[in-house]
């Protein structure tokens, strides 16, 4: 009986152990099958990059507007009312072409008035003349002299009046119409039919034969290699793929400007001396008024280049995350390590590092989760 009880106890314990063993084996199988999945859920994945040595290239884009080289502002100096505007903005005109016709009634009226005045003067001259003849016949020396003086004054008045009429007629001829001074394109029309000139030029016209020009403000550093006469590629914004050739005509000192557009995310904007480039453009495709840009490149010394994505900032101090590998009997484990660096320069994609990193030292480019120093990571 006692033996049987003992046997039962043993089998009861064995059953439990069998259960435990099955559970253990099952657990090991499950972990074997799913540990990778669990690992992916618990450990951030990091993508590494190897910094390279090279020259940092700054690309700078300067923008400007295309303008005609020669432009004339045409105004009616007399301020007459416009009766007819024969051109509109963008019209090509030839030299001598009529642009605006003005109301000349007032001027004609004035000329008629002045001509009437002249007639009056001439009549009064006739009278003076007969006075003089009378005086001469009378032999009165005194009255003859005064008649002669009055006759001379009358002749001067007639001359003056004639000149005034001549001038008015000239004005009438010149101001009744606005003519194109050269072959060109109308760039602005301010004249409106029925209204007098408003102070601004009635017509602005650009000379087509002299071509275009544009001004660009660029950092002095990037313009250092440029000299007058250099050719530049100028891109026309908006017009897909249109690139025209420009020639540097003038390089002037410009105001200091903030260099912000070149390095989004890289470095604080600093005050840099700027240069103003005047570039002549000759291309029939240009119309004037287009936005254009020039791209300038600037090289720095040979340095270690790290993608900007890998550079992090902590209270103004820059650092990258490096990887520390710990060997173990169960394979290597990778930990995140913070490496402070000195960034010498940067452009829109890479930063040149002068201290803190050496070539071929792997740094973390991006990770599936935000990282902290000492975190364990998976590497792919």
């Amino acid at each position, binding site marked *: 009986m006692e033996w049987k009880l003992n046997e039962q106890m*043993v089998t009861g314990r064995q059953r439990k*152990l069998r259960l435990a*063993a099955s559970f253990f084996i099952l657990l090991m199988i499950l972990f074997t099958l799913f540990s990778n999945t669990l690992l992916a859920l618990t450990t951030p994945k990091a993508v590494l990059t190897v910094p390279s040595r090279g020259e940092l290239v700054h690309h700078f884009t300067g923008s400007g507007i295309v303008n005609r080289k020669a432009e004339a502002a045409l105004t009616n100096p007399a301020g007459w009312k416009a009766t007819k505007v024969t051109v509109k903005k963008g019209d090509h005109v030839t030299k001598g072409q009529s642009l605006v016709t003005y109301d000349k009634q007032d001027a004609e009226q004035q000329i008629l008035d002045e001509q009437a005045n002249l007639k009056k003067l001439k009549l009064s001259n006739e009278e003076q003349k007969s006075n003089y003849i009378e005086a001469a016949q009378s032999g009165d020396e005194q009255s003859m002299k005064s008649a002669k003086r009055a006759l001379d004054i009358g002749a001067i008045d007639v001359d003056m009046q004639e000149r005034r009429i001549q001038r008015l007629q000239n004005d009438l001829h010149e101001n009744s119409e606005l003519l194109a001074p050269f072959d060109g394109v109308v760039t602005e029309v301010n004249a409106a039919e029925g209204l007098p000139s408003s102070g601004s030029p009635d017509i602005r016209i650009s000379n087509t034969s002299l071509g275009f020009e544009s001004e660009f403000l660029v950092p002095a550093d990037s313009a250092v290699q440029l000299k007058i006469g250099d050719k530049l590629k100028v891109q026309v914004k908006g017009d897909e793929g249109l690139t025209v050739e420009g020639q540097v005509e003038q390089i002037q000192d410009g105001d200091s400007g903030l260099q912000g557009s070149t390095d989004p995310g890289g470095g604080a904007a600093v005050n840099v001396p700027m240069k103003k480039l005047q570039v002549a453009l000759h291309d029939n495709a240009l119309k004037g008024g287009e936005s254009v840009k020039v791209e300038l490149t600037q090289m720095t010394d040979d340095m270690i280049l790290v993608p900007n994505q890998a550079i992090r900032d902590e209270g103004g101090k820059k650092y990258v995350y490096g990887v520390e590998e710990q060997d173990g009997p*169960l394979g290597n484990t990778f930990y995140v390590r913070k490496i402070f660096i000195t960034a010498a320069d940067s452009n829109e994609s890479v930063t040149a590092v002068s201290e803190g990193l050496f070539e071929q030292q792997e740094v973390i480019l991006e990770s599936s989760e935000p990282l902290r120093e000492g975190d364990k990571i998976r590497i792919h």
Partner: protein
Amino acid sequence: MRGLALFRKLTLTLVMGVIAAAMLFPIAVTFTNSLMTEDEIGYNYHLIGKMADIGAGEKDGFINLKLLPDWISFRQYAEVLVHKPKFLHMFWNSVFLVVPIIAGQVLVASLAAYAFAKLRFWGREKLFVVYLMTMLMPFQVTLVPNYMIADKLGLMNSNSAIILPGIFSAFGVFMLRQFMAHIPYLYIEAAKMDGAGHLRIFYRVIVPLVKPGIAALVVLLFADNWNMVEQPLIFLEEAMKQPLSLYLSRINEGARGVAFAASVVYMAPMVMLFLYAESYLVEGIQLSGIKG
């Protein structure tokens, strides 16, 4: 007189208790430490593996063995079972080395033991002595010939280089022969009278009777092969083929934080098997008069 017997018994119990505690202590430490965090272990055992810097105020000599964790954490287990895929890989390497060895050796040894115990043929005893001699020689002695044979057969860096020598070991034959020797020949005679052949006798009569012996052999073989270090170290060059036993031989500074949990997982199959077959093992060792 009775008081003396009681005193003797008490003393014996005390001595045995102390010995048992001493033996259980490392296991207890391993288990409790496996529930500590990596940081706690690092703090407790920071002196292991390096010289104490007395100049910096460190005390030489003693290490703070801590039994109870500050708080229970399964971080180590997660680390071992999830973050270290190589651990599981090595675990299954061990399983795929040990299971074929045990299965093969039980099959081969039980048949050979039957022959040595119950078949009468010329030179049986002499052959058995030769067999025993291979068992008496330590593994290292036969290592070089083993290596050369494995190399000639093109088995280097493959599991067979360990499994094949493991299967044909004299230990199982010897142990099961001792078991079978105790089976009265009359049983075999009776079976023969009923018209049973050797295979039927072996399968129907002998195997059921030596079940405890086989169980004991399985436990001893498991313990032996689960813990083998030299064979895989020599025959398996590729790290991804090596069993878990090699990992424990390589615990270093870097992996100290997970060593305890790894040890617990490593021990678990053996402990469970031992508890399961404990009664057979005791019986088997008693009968055959040997232990692993």
